[in-house]
């Protein structure tokens, strides 16, 4: 064995596989010795999975006994309901179509959302764990304000207040740790959030707001209708 190599091994025979690591003294990275507590999959995990599944089936059965699936009159191409609504998970999209031209609202934005979701882990910026304001604070502030500004102007021009208000609100929360730096509390926790966290949160808030509006607040001619005046 070479002089600068040293053998380290686990002698705990109950654990497998036994790892042997040869390390040079100069090596910066240490082989981490992880000793997480392990339990047998059977019965611990398998039983828990079964219980969770059974509870879910019971809840589903109870819901199915109480609430009937909707069924309207037979399809009639000559009689268009007003408004004609897609299933609820597409009502955010339908709400977008109300503001933007079909190519933008129905094709480009949803396609961008799916592509953006898929590529998340392939960009270093999304892997970073450091808080948004950890380094280059001034530069971050300028980039943030410029990009939010551009998005806001576009949203304002298209009168998309349903997206503009959440965008501004999320931005204000982003700026909070910059202007009121705190170590603990809500602001302390917010200051530890990386950029990817903020973008995803913004996306989720927009999806929820648009879907809720499309589902509960839109009536005939896609006009604003309060839910207590009837849902469509």
């Amino acid at each position, binding site marked *: 064995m070479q002089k600068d190599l040293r053998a380290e091994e686990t002698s705990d025979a109950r654990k497998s596989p036994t790892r042997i690591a040869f390390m040079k003294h100069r090596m910066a990275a240490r082989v981490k010795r992880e000793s997480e*507590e392990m339990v047998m*999959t059977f019965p611990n995990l398998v039983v828990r999975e079964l219980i969770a599944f059974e509870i879910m089936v019971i809840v589903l059965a109870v819901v199915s006994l109480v609430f009937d699936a909707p069924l309207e009159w037979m399809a009639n191409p000559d009689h268009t309901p007003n408004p004609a*609504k*897609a299933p609820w998970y*597409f009502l955010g999209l339908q709400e977008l179509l109300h503001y933007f031209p079909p190519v933008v609202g129905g094709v480009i934005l949803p396609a961008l959302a799916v592509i953006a979701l898929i590529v998340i882990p392939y960009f270093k910026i999304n*892997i970073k764990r450091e808080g948004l304001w950890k380094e280059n604070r001034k530069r971050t502030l300028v980039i943030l304000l410029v990009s939010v500004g551009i998005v806001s102007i576009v949203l304002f021009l298209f009168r998309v207040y349903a997206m503009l208000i959440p965008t501004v609100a999320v931005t204000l929360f982003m700026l909070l740790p910059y202007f009121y730096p705190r170590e603990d509390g809500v602001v302390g926790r917010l200051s530890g959030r990386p950029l990817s966290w903020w973008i995803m949160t913004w996306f989720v808030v927009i999806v929820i707001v648009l879907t809720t509006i499309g589902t509960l607040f839109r009536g005939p001619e896609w006009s604003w209708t309060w839910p207590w005046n009837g849902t469509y």
Partner: protein
Amino acid sequence: MKHVMGRLYTSQLWRSMFRHGLPDSNRTRAETIFYNFFLHIHPTKVRKRSLRYTYTWGLGGLSFGLFIVLTVTGGLLMLYYRPSVPQAYWDMKDLQFVVSSGQFLRNMHRWAAHAMVAMVFLHMLRVFYTGSYRPPKEFNWAVGVLLLVLTILLSYTGYLLPWDQLAFWGISVGTNMARAIPFGLGEKMSFLLLGGNIVGENALVRFYVLHCFILPVAGCVLMGIHFWRVRKDGGV
């Protein structure tokens, strides 16, 4: 009784199916996992931390659970359903008034389908917010996003099948969105999907085949990859 069961567990028939003894030692507990086709996706031991319910909220597992419920109820519904106009709608009425527990069957399928869209979306959020998309799991994240898209498509294709007003206009609105795809591509895609220019009987048959065969098979393949990768990347 104990004696009879003991004889059973040691019989050749039982042993030919289950090659291990009862799970009363850690050795046989491990064998219970890796000699079982359905359980061998799991490792024989898991980190104690991953048992905690609030670790993942069980959202991925429950999504799969909903898929199982949907496969079972969907298979039964297929027995009473003809994908043609206007029989499709009358079959809904038969489920409501003629078939024993038909309404319950349809309710279960409907609510489970809605729940699955929400559950898969929530699972994606959980994975994101716990940072579980980070390397080496980046490919599995991408597979997961495709599974979310497939889930929505499954739910959407099923939406047309009752052939009521809700179904017809819901699908008309959706396919009109697809028409907006530029360069004439949207028109072509919507024609391919509907088997015509409007939502009619051809569309019903196509959505039926997509809903009951093509999309579930694609989903099963992707799920197989997804679960296998979870395990390979160090999960349960």
